[in-house]
């Protein structure tokens, strides 16, 4: 009832309707997205999407959530308040990674098989541009100024830095082997790339456009969350069932946490204190306290939770 009142008040006065941030977790084994209310740690809804959903990004205001479905080759667009799919857009043969522009107006989708990134207008839901990138592009991230898009080309061992103004690569940097997840610091000065097959993280200076460091992590790293307050990164290691926590200042590993089998998608909660990790094998989301570096909660999300992208909103 309190929630209803809050929602009613929200309708009248506040642009963002839902109070608590929600985590939108793609469940690849059951073609759904679980919606976790992060205030109560409960799954409050389950939204049916396309086949084998993998990538997910929520708009910053939480009004829209976009999900890639590699096996049905389309994108599900979810209304974040109604928690219903409002559109399904056919894309290429392997839509996988997804990111959103800082103004929530453009959606970027990598295509694993067609070696390009589709740019969609979030208003019209049409593809407005296709950007050729390297082989099997996976993770994507847009810089906070909205000018550049980073693309991890998994089978080229490179990172494309695309100028979104011209739609062309400004630079193509060599990373470790099989780069997958890519994350940009909140300040926009540095990027972190998880290299699956070399089990390390490439740290990239986005001013100089150079790899400035390569940090060893666990086995088969997948994705990364950045903690700007404590200057740390959290890296999911799929084959170790661990989370590597590194100090990005000195580049040392602070802790290696047992997290759950096949940890994959990871995101920092807007509270700046908690990190959410989707553990694929058991379909659980583990919540880590970024201060104490302990797992404080485990939430059963669904079958094959992957959540590859920025899955928490509003943020």
């Amino acid at each position: 009832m309190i929630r209803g009142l809050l929602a009613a008040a929200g309708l009248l006065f506040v642009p963002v309707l839902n109070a608590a941030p929600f985590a939108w977790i793609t469940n690849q084994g059951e073609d759904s997205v679980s919606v976790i209310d992060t205030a109560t740690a409960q799954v409050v809804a389950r939204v049916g999407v396309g086949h084998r959903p993998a990538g997910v990004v929520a708009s910053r205001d939480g009004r829209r959530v976009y999900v890639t479905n590699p096996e049905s080759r389309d994108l599900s667009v979810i209304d974040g308040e109604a928690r219903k799919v409002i559109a399904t857009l056919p894309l290429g043969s392997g839509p996988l990674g997804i990111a959103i522009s800082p103004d929530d107006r453009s959606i970027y989708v990598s295509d694993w098989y067609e070696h390009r990134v589709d740019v969609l207008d979030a208003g019209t839901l049409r593809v407005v541009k296709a950007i050729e990138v390297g082989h099997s592009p996976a993770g994507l991230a847009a810089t906070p100024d909205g000018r550049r898009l980073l693309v991890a080309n998994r089978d080229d061992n490179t990172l494309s830095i695309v100028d979104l103004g011209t739609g062309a690569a400004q630079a193509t940097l060599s990373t470790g082997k099989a780069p997958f997840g890519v994350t940009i610091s909140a300040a926009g000065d540095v990027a972190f790339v998880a290299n699956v097959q070399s089990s390390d993280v490439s740290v990239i200076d986005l001013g100089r456009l150079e790899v400035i460091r390569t940090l060893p992590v666990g086995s088969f790293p997948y994705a990364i969350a950045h903690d700007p307050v404590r200057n740390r990164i959290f890296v999911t290691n799929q084959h170790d069932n661990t989370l590597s926590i590194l100090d990005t200042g000195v580049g040392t590993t602070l802790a290696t946490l047992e997290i759950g089998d096949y940890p994959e998608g990871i995101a920092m909660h807007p509270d700046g204190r908690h990190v959410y990790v989707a553990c694929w094998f058991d379909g659980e989301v583990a919540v880590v306290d970024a201060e104490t570096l302990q797992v404080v909660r485990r939430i059963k999300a669904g079958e094959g939770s992957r959540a590859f992208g920025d899955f928490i909103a509003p943020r």
Partner: protein
Amino acid sequence: MNRIMTLLLAVALLAPAVASAHGPSRQKVVKEVQINAPAAKVWGLIQDFCSISSWNPEVPECTAPAGNALDTVRTIKLKNGGALQERLAKYQPEAMTMQYTLVEPNPEALPINTLGTTLSVREGEGGGSIVEWKTAFYRSFPGPTPPPELSDEAAVAAVTRIVDAGLARLKELAEQ
């Protein structure tokens, strides 16, 4: 099927960069078997990384250096004659658990890629034990439209056959 394999190999040789792509959706097989024998006895049967050929009829041959040091590579031969190499990634005898990964895919043996397996034994009820076999993998087919024999479903079926045969035989041996 053979023609497809030849074609695949040809593609792999011409463009090695393409060969490492795999299906976008990881698959898993998780199976447990309850055994009316103590956990220590069951672990004794499987604790040697290369003992698999003695308890899994789908894996008639295994060769490896002696011992269970991390990174030991074993070569197994499947019933269909195809060979695979697997690397020991974690070995915890006190927890009766081992983990291993596939070194290189060999679709002619098994249509999978990037396999990771955890094999463990724990105490069950009434002095019995439970063996759990957890494995995760991608299909090996590098493109978006695999033929039926290289599909996700085919990969899952092939792995399931090996898991089921191993657990059933292990139960027989341990309960003898």
